[in-house]
């Protein structure tokens, strides 16, 4: 592992809406809903809803690093 790799911050995990398949990527955020790029899922307000199906934050689960979803 290089020095840069050792010092690089760990990638913030992505989160999957278990009801509709939308994947929240912290690098992208959800700017149209006031969530800027770089926002970790945990830091999103609790009243935020999935932009695809309207589900709540509690309906999301964290994707493990390297987790492969069928069809992706």
């Amino acid at each position: 592992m290089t020095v840069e790799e050792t010092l690089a911050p760990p990638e913030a995990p992505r989160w999957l809406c278990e009801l509709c398949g939308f994947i929240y990527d912290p690098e992208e955020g959800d700017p149209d809903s006031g969530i800027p790029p770089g926002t970790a899922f945990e830091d999103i307000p609790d009243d935020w809803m999935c932009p695809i199906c309207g589900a709540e934050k509690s309906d999301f689960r964290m994707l493990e690093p390297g987790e492969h979803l069928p069809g992706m």
Partner: protein
Amino acid sequence: MITGYGHFVQLAESLQWDETAIDLTTDIESWTKLEDSEYDQILGLIAGFCVGETSVALHLGSFQSKATVDDAMAGCFEAQARDEARHARFFDRVVGEVVGVPGKNLNERLQVLRERVSPELLELFEERLPAIARGLAESDEELTTAVGLYHMILEGVVLTAGQHALLDALEKLSVPMPGMRKGMELVLRDERWHIGFGSRVIQSADLVDNDLEKILNEGSKAAWAWGDLISSKDIEKVDQLHKRRLKSVGIKFW
């Protein structure tokens, strides 16, 4: 980003439910005690669902047949058709057992219920959708255009608006209707993955500006199809969700 088609097929398998297992005993007893305004709203919404779910179940086969290049996509349409048929059977149980609409089968009961459904809803489900399905079957309609109507508008706007309105109405009733409520929650759960699947198809497609603008504008118009069965506040809410959904799949108009 939305997950791949294989994920939706697995998700659909995990969400299967049995519409005959829902206990409607309390609902049957409560139905006769509804206040007039409650009766009109609930029956109006249920009638719309009977028309809508029957139509979508009937016409989804054309979509599946068109998904020839991707087995997983075809698998999603097949799973969705199974769900929609189940929804139609659930609503038929409600109108037959709870409401007591006369008729030997769903089709006969539908003829009675259609009188309670707005012309706008009838036009969407009994003219527009069948026309799109015929176009798919005759090969002159593009699948993504059809998905734009079906998933983004009919499911994403019209049926979503109706589902939320019915669940809200059931919560506020003067009498308990737990069976209907349970069934509606399961219907809504299914519809969420249907909308996710449709959004995935749209996201992957190379739609031109005209198609995108059509989905946007038709969705906003379709939000009013339930007439006064849904409040203008709830119509506005579902229209905002529609716009937000389109933005999330990469459609940017503003």
